[in-house]
């Protein structure tokens, strides 16, 4: 979708056009869902929180102002706030045992291929979830969405250099965590 077209759709959506908001929803739902899924670690909360991100966005779309950041940055901010509340409402991060976890499908693989996490992958995901939210966001944008440092910078409101530096520090922190756990 070209940028100018999205601006028009955004304008219509902010004037209460539900169909226009529906188009935005379809464009961003997978990205928000992936972000929430990797931040919460389970499908049930990922669905609940992703839906709430869009309901909240719909409730406040009339207040949305274009500050030069992509619309996704606004949605990510809403998602970030809801996830922060979700974590606050729980004394510890909710982790569903693998046997109870609902089946998830990777996009690049046929539906019959389900997630079979090894213990190693599971512990890596746990370490990722204990990183500061900004670092988790960076890793999700980089590995799940395959965004360049420049695009990540635009979404996160940082310079490309700052993203590179944050990424390097995140890798070092993760490596240290993994090494100390061995």
């Amino acid at each position, binding site marked *: 979708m070209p940028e100018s077209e999205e601006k028009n759709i955004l304008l219509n959506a902010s004037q209460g056009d539900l169909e226009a908001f529906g188009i935005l929803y*379809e464009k961003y739902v997978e990205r928000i869902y992936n972000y929430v899924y990797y931040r919460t670690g389970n499908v049930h909360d990922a669905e609940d929180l992703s839906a709430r991100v869009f309901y909240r966005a719909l409730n406040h779309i009339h207040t949305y102002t274009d500050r030069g950041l992509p619309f996704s940055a606004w949605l990510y901010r809403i998602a970030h706030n809801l996830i922060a509340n979700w974590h606050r409402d729980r004394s510890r991060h909710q982790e569903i045992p693998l046997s109870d976890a609902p089946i998830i499908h990777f996009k690049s693989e046929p539906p019959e291929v389900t997630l079979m996490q090894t213990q190693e992958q599971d512990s890596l995901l746990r370490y990722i979830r204990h990183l500061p939210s900004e670092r988790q966001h960076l890793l999700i944008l980089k*590995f799940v969405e395959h965004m360049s440092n420049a695009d990540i910078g635009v979404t996160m409101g940082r310079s490309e250099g700052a993203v590179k530096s944050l990424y390097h520090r995140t890798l070092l922190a993760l490596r240290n965590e993994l090494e100390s756990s061995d």
Partner: protein
Amino acid sequence: MTNIKQLADASMGKLTSLEKQLSGVLRPIEPRKEFVRGVAHRIRTGSQVDLLVDRIANWHLIALLMAGLITLAVFLAVVGRTLLSLLEKKRTA
């Protein structure tokens, strides 16, 4: 110098291997189609219930505001009564 280079190479190698692990763990996930369609339908039909639920979900803030208002009202009533009784005492004196 060679030792430093070897250490740096080893460190870089570890980071590269970590990046590989990350790309194996952090992969795009497809949300359930029923979920995506369900929310899309509720958005397009403007289902007020979900929007209302989202507003009510902010109940922490609402509860805090209510508690603040009630405290303020009680405080004002106590101060008002004290002032009135002081005035009455002055009058009678």
